[in-house]
């Protein structure tokens, strides 16, 4: 039923990425960047929410599957692959602008990512109250227990070099001082333009959105990055909100490979996610025609009818009988199965008699 509305695997590009969180299609900035690029380039693609980075040959997500070719892993390679396929957002850039695009991409992917990791995994309050529960919920089954700790350990190793410093009379981590500098560079670059390089989007827009969108989450227990962005760099914040509306306002199309084959395992492992997969708007409600809807209603009607008939028949033919009234004078309600005359209840009575003797 629902699978018919989804695009068949192999027909379109399929992006494997970490699952949704915080009102965004993925909690991983790199996956989000790749998704944003696909949306900006107006590619036909489907999303496959992964639970396990093991699906990718490199142990990393995002991964793009393009029909029968070898899967493409990591954001930069996905973007390079799409450029080769003709979805090139950077065509209108001059040589200098292309160099700047590379430099800012590096700044965002290396440095701003550090800031995000710090705020998510090294702020004890955030870890306990926000990130860990949210990401666990976004993942299916055991991955929910395993992946957050892995991410946290990785972040700790990566951020060893940042030290605590005094900033404006307060003890704070170096990263919050540096992140202002980085935001400032981006805000200057953006200026009042709709996109980073004028009126047309580029790959930098996809990358910046992918990362910054996760920086401005107000619901964290300690939303330091969010407050820096909203108070000191309102243009960047407005940019993120606008991009989110433009790119991910409408639901993404789910892959046919996802869900259908995993249904049994999914129900057992995590009913919540299963329900989300089945009843998500991505299943394409608006694409259903009148006949289909009628057919669906017919299906449900016939199921209800069949069950009703079955239950009615059972009672009518006396296979199961419920008697209300006093058979033994004790006021017991007897449920007799297959005509056996309440053997169980008699045993209980006998037992009571035995005790009173």
């Amino acid at each position, binding site marked *: 039923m629902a699978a018919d509305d989804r695009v068949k695997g192999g027909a379109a590009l399929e992006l494997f990425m970490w699952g949704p969180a915080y009102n965004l299609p993925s909690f991983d900035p790199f996956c989000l960047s790749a998704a944003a690029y696909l949306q900006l380039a107006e590619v036909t693609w489907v999303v496959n929410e992964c639970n396990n980075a093991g699906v990718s040959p*490199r*142990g*990393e997500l995002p991964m793009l599957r393009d029909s029968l070719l070898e899967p493409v892993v990591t954001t930069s390679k996905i973007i390079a692959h799409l450029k080769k396929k003709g979805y090139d957002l950077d065509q209108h850039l001059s*040589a*200098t602008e*292309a*160099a*700047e695009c*590379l*430099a*800012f991409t*590096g*700044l965002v992917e*290396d*440095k701003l990512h550090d800031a995000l990791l710090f705020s998510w995994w090294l702020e004890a309050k955030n870890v306990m109250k926000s990130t860990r529960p949210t990401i666990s919920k976004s993942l299916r089954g055991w991955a929910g227990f395993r992946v957050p700790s892995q991410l946290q350990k*990785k972040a700790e*190793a*990566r951020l*060893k*070099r940042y*030290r605590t410093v005094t900033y404006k009379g307060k003890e704070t981590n*170096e990263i919050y*001082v*540096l992140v202002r*500098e*980085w935001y*400032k*560079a*981006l805000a*200057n*670059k953006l200026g009042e333009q709709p996109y980073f390089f004028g009126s047309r989007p580029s790959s930098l827009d996809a990358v910046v959105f992918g990362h910054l969108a996760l920086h401005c989450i107000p619901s964290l227990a300690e939303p330091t990055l969010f407050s820096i962005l909203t108070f000191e760099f309102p243009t960047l914040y407005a940019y993120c909100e606008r991009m989110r509306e433009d790119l991910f306002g409408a639901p993404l199309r789910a892959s046919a490979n996802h869900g259908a084959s995993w249904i049994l395992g999914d129900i057992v492992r995590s009913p919540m996610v299963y329900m989300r997969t089945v009843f998500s708007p991505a299943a394409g409600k608006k694409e259903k025609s009148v006949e289909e809807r009628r057919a669906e209603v017919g299906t449900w009607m016939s199921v209800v009818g069949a069950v009703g008939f079955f239950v009615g028949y059972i009672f009518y033919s006396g296979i199961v009988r419920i008697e209300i009234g006093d058979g033994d004078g004790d006021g017991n309600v007897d449920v007799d199965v297959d005509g056996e005359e309440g053997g169980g209840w008699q045993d209980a009575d006998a037992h009571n008699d035995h005790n009173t003797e």
Partner: protein
Amino acid sequence: MGIPNPLKKLQDALPLVRYPAVYTPPIWPAEPANIPILFIFPPSKQAITSLDAECVKYQAFLAFSNYEHVTRECHEPEMSPSGQLPFLMAADGRILTGRQIIEEVKDKAGDLESRLTDAERSNLTAFTQLAETKLDFALNYTFPPQLFTMWYDSRIRDRITFPMYESLYPWPLNKILSRSLRSEKTEWMLSRRAVLKKDEILDDAKRTLAALSTLLGSQLFFFGSKASFLDAVVFSYLHIILSLLALPSHEVPLREAVMKHDNLVQYARRVFNTFFAA
């Protein structure tokens, strides 16, 4: 009452003598020096610049800013508060590392970047980060075997890197320390990248070099006629790659990649001649 004889004998056998305190040198130097001292990783015998890119970076920045200082050799990174060389002992005795050095120098010797426009400043930040991450990765850390890296190519490792570190300590400490340093670097690298592949890292470096070459064009420095922090960063990596990785036996791919950009090579030579050769 006297002490019983055997006990007294024992006490006599172990006399309690108070020796004068052992001489400990004062925390060095005893009083704040009048001139700031930059502690750097030792240079090779005939060179003036350090063997460590991070140290060259600050040496160059201080030279660009005309900040009066002396350098002192130090091969113990743990001496620095951040655990990384270099560090600067300011004239008033404060010990500064990393960004604090930059702030101090800007305070005392004037801000090199004050003349830049907003757009140039944001480019400065972006390109500085780009060079620091990609070239740093390519140079120091990630060069897997065939690529001749400082830590991963057996030839470079045995010729340059290990002698560089091993000559500083006596046997067997040198063997242990240089290997533990290597594993530390590996761990740090793996925290940044899930997979260490030589081609990817070299490609990143190549693209970075191309971008820097485009930005430089035919200018004297990256932002016009005066140096900035970006110049210090790029010069440090170019200088180390061009000088240290120049092996007579074979060409190192990273060095080859730099040599392809003529303006970068000229630039490194020019900066070295202007600020360090004299």
